[in-house]
């Protein structure tokens, strides 16, 4: 089962996602990137139905880009979150997207922010959030150790604690994770936590 979680730090936000692409009993790949970079200062970590995940996050990304070209300024994180939720809500009673989303972003005036958007279009602005079976362990770990103004190092320590719990306590635990960070300098990869490496292709 897929795990995505995230938290807000002093002046940054972090999103972590497992990187396994699974189909019933087969693992397609262990380096699937499920955290889409929406624009220079937004990260959208998504879990759920594979096709829906890719399709929906790309759709949001292109609409965020279109807004910027039309208006000359980027969308705020709050606006992007509400747009995303709106799209999920509109599709909900027709052909729903089965995607759970954690949206992290940095706005110059507001600072870092994190939004929890689930597949039936709930929207919550939060400091920490998690989806999937891993959420039982990640949320528990974050509830115990999270503080408002963590530094990047402290936050990564907490992220690693969460990953360790997920790896040790889930019967089918995803082996690899990707960590991405967004701060005033933009959204970027932070690190990968790999316990299984794909065999290198020739």
């Amino acid at each position, binding site marked *: 089962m897929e795990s995505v979680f995230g938290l807000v730090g002093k002046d940054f936000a972090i999103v972590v996602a497992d990187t396994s692409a699974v189909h019933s009993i087969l693992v397609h790949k262990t380096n699937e990137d499920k955290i889409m970079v929406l624009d220079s200062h937004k990260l959208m970590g998504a879990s759920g139905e594979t096709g829906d995940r890719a399709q929906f996050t*790309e*759709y949001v990304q*292109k*609409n965020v*880009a*279109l807004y910027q*070209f039309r208006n000359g300024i980027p969308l705020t994180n709050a606006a992007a979150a509400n747009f995303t939720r709106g799209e999920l809500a509109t599709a909900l009673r027709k052909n729903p997207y089965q995607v759970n989303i954690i949206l992290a972003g940095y706005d110059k005036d507001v600072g870092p922010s994190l939004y929890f958007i689930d597949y039936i279009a709930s929207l919550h602005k939060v400091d920490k959030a998690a989806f999937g079976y891993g959420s039982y362990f990640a949320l528990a770990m974050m509830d115990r150790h999270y503080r408002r103004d963590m530094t990047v190092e402290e936050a990564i320590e907490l992220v690693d604690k969460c990953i360790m719990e997920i790896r040790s306590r889930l019967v089918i635990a995803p082996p690899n994770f990707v960590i991405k960070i967004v701060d005033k300098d933009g959204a970027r990869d932070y690190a990968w936590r790999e316990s299984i490496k794909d065999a290198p292709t020739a």
Partner: protein
Amino acid sequence: MARYDRAITVFSPDGHLFQVEYALEAVRKGNAAVGVRGTDTIVLAVEKKSTPKLQDSRSVRKIVNLDDHIALACAGLKADARVLINRARIECQSYKLTIEDPVTVEYITRYIAGLQQKYTQSGGVRPFGLSTLIIGFDPHTGTPSLYQTDPSGTFSAWKANATGRNSNSIREFLEKNYKETSGQETLKLAIRALLEVVESGGKNIEVAVMTREHGLRQLEEAEIDAIVADIEAEKAAAEAAKKAPATKET
């Protein structure tokens, strides 16, 4: 509603589409716009007719970007331009969503031209009253391109071109003075061409430069003034050089 289906653009007995030709008239009355393609730089320069004192000039941008690597300037009906630009921007993102690749300059030009043509062959609508200059770099090969479309829906690629007011004089100047340039030289050529028909000064021209690495950059008024001053100085020096040999002989 049946009354609005009748075609407005119809052939005349001698094979003209008068509505399209009238649209070209509207373009000829619009502000002058110049585009010059260099080896690593493409420049768009547009005439800025005197801004009313109370108007916020930042809200009147004449050179716009359609995507990270494509920009457009136009001459003619500005309201029609807004509609066309919006459709083009949507198409750029839609293409990226389905094809996972950015559009080529030729593709988006063909799309805009196709749109302009559609409105010359539909019921109840009139053609768009504008010609566009579209610049950009090919997303894979990095080749620079400059294209022009017009109200009839034709388009073609150019090394340098002008549209709008006095475009014939500007084009003549470009034909005489065009050569392969890069960087600052391309920028100077474009501004020199525009200055043939526009009063010199930073507040009468809007200039934007596109490069492969940095995308579109709008020049500040001060920068434009500096280049205009450079050009004037070069012109004066050339005049002086022409006169000097004559006086020596006497």
